[in-house]
């Protein structure tokens, strides 16, 4: 066991609405959506038309540049609708699910005896290849590359994040198979980061074929990008891949059984959640089927820092295993900023008195709590960024679109999610994640 990586910088946002550790229902969806918008760096091409029959694991889309990368249906059923947006952009393919599920059989295999090429083919065919995220830039992995190493963070520290050990507790053999299979794709090994607090009982700490690290500290200690920067920072020219533990289990399952089974426990969380607990469902399930949604509530796929707005008529994303429900904060508080005490509003700044009640959990909403301004206080960014970079310099380089400076200040090491807390703490209310994403998009465009 290597040394524990303890991170001091960061912030755990104290929000109400953590999911209780029980599964309240298993959702059998009527219709499931496959959304190409979930995958960054890929351009979808449609392989089916409305009315086609598909099995769970049948290809629905492929990537335009690399047609080997397939996107497969999570259910068996009939293609019901192809949803397009502006300029005929493909937004989603809806599949009406059968009552009885049938699976494409990829053939069960022994993970230890697979070759790299066999693993690659299996992942490409089963539609699990897009679960490999390539850094730098956070785009889908290029099948022609052999990465320096593969990183898996076995836990999340994001606000109200699902407990991975509860979600995947009964899938230890799938995870083990997934790690062994992924290990074939790299020479640098699979790095697995485990939460130090639960190391003793976590199934992840006992995995073979992985280099195990323990990590402790406040959010974003669970972010794989932060862990990479402390284990082996990404420099210019390096490529590493990351996989979420959820999809490692899915990869292991397809190796062991030959079936694509994306069913997962999904945490219904947030202050506006009616019953915060877990449900079992597939990615692509309509949000309205997952839980009861009230008026004036924002439905977010993922956590409150990095999640995307799905809406009450949306569908859960490919990578999501959390739904956060949050009231829209359109109410205007009279003299809010001038009140000595504001017990309902959390602030990590000592200009308020939230530090008096460190255990309190807040009923948060989406109010911005101020207006956008130029950067003034910038030390707050460093306090929540446990990566060895200068956040404000990177942010300004991204704003200026200066490639050379972006490289110098560490654009290869971060994804927007790693600086998500900067969004939260900034008194000038800038959208830091959007700035970083724009910078990354510029890098992809210029370096291509």
């Amino acid at each position: 066991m290597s040394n524990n990586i303890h991170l001091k910088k960061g912030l755990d946002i104290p929000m109400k609405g953590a999911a209780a550790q029980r599964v309240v229902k298993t959702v059998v969806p009527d219709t499931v959506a496959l959304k190409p918008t979930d995958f960054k760096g890929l351009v979808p091409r449609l392989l089916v038309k409305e009315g086609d029959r598909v099995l769970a694991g049948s290809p629905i889309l492929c990537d335009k540049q690399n047609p080997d990368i397939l996107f497969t249906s999570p259910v068996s059923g009939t293609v019901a609708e192809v949803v397009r947006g502006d300029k005929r952009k493909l937004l989603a393919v809806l599949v009406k699910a059968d009552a009885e599920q049938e699976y494409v059989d990829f053939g069960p295999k022994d993970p230890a005896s697979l070759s790299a090429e066999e693993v690659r083919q299996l992942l490409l065919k089963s539609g699990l290849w897009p679960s490999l995220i390539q850094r730098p830039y956070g785009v889908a992995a290029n099948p022609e590359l052999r990465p320096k190493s593969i990183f898996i963070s076995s836990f999340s520290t994001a606000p109200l994040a699902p407990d991975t050990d509860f979600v995947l507790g009964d899938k230890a053999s799938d995870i083990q198979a997934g790690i062994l299979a992924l290990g074939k794709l790299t020479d640098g090994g699979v790095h697995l980061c485990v939460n130090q607090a639960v190391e003793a009982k976590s199934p992840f700490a006992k995995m073979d074929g992985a280099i195990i690290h323990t990590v402790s500290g406040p959010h974003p200690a669970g972010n794989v990008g932060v862990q990479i920067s402390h284990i082996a920072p990404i420099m210019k020219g390096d490529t590493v891949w990351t996989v979420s533990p959820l999809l490692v289990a899915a990869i292991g399952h397809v190796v062991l059984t030959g079936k694509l089974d994306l069913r997962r426990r999904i945490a219904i969380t947030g202050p506006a959640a009616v019953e915060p607990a877990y449900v079992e469902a597939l990615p692509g399930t309509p949000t309205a089927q997952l839980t009861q949604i009230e008026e004036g509530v924002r439905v977010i796929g993922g956590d409150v820092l990095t999640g995307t707005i799905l809406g009450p008529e949306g569908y859960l994303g490919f990578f999501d295993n959390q739904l956060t429900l949050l009231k829209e904060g359109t109410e205007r508080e009279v003299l809010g900023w001038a009140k000595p005490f504001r017990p309902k509003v959390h602030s990590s700044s000592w200009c308020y008195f939230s530090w008096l009640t460190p255990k309190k959990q807040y009923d948060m909403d989406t109010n911005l709590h101020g207006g956008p301004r130029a950067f003034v206080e910038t030390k707050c960014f460093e306090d929540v960024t446990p990566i060895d970079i200068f956040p404000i310099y990177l942010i300004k380089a991204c704003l200026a679109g200066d490639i050379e400076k972006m490289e110098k200040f560490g654009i290869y090491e971060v994804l927007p999610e790693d600086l998500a807390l900067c969004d939260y703490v900034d008194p000038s209310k800038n959208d830091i994640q959007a700035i970083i994403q724009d910078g990354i998009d510029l890098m992809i465009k210029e370096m291509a």
Partner: protein
Amino acid sequence: MADQNKPGLFEKGGKLYWLHSTIDAFDTFLRVPGTVTARGAHVRDGIDLKRVMIMVVIALVPAALFGMYNVGYQTAVATGASWGFWKMFFYGLLKVLPLYIVSYIVGLAIEFADAQIKGEEVNEGYLVSGFLIPLIVPVDVPLWMLAIAVAFAVIFGKCVFGGTGMNIWNPALLARAFLFFSYPSSMSGSDVWVHIPKDMPAVDSFTGATPLAIAHDGMGALNAQYSFMDLFYGLIPGSVGETSVIAILIGALILVWTGVASWKIMISSIAGGLLVGWLGHLGGATELPAVYQLVMGGFLFGTVFMATDPVTSAQTECGKWIYGFLVGALAVTVRLWNPGYAEGMMLAILLMNTFAPLIDHCVVSAKISARNKKVRTA
């Protein structure tokens, strides 16, 4: 005021559109905006710039209140009048209040017009600058001069750069520098620091010189007029808010506690001032022990409230140590070796404001090259 912000009138195309930034400023002053997050994190911290700025204003209040009392006290001492505490305080209040009115009216009017022209929201930065400016000028400064200085500082110190957060120099100090170089006779010498009413002639022994000016004549001359504790309490002539060490330390405590200002800059500035003060004492440039440099003139006020301005100071943590140290060291250097200027704090801070980006550049470059080396060898 907030209720007037009905759709139409102040919106684009409305009759009073030219007032929309002003209305918006008052509206958001009274009620937190109802804006919700669009891109990025869906929840946000309760902190905003209004809160940050009001914290600095609160930290300045002890110095301002003491300054008002001291204005009355100095007049009473100079004229031999036997006034009580409240009489001194209200006398000072009446002298200082016009400075505040001019500072805020001129400064905010320009800020509002600027925001309107640019179509932006009004910045909160002037809440602090407007409160600072009356505290760093002599009480007798003519109001029209103050108005011109404020206008200069806001327009050329801030608006041309793009507003709060973009400026290179501390706007309040820029106002003072403008006064100092444009109207030196109203900003230096022995006749400007204490208000002497026309109908109350000064007593014979009154000189009106600040301790810094007297200190040039040596320790004996200083001790003849003021004890160390006088300097510490702040019952001395000087700019309105700069005299009392106690009041400034209360403000420093608030700023450090809330994290609004950097304690690193404060500590390193004091260290720099003490070191040069000690060297000067050792080398015979002054008879005063180094600690006197801290309690005289604007050193401490500048260290706590002006050098720590997060916009114009160094941004890197290591850079803050260097920046602060140089501010303190330079200020005392000017005091000891430049007979032309009795006070060096203003120029030291403005000079270091200019060099802060360079300091940061060096710190960041050094760190990045050190890191690249480490990663390559690892």
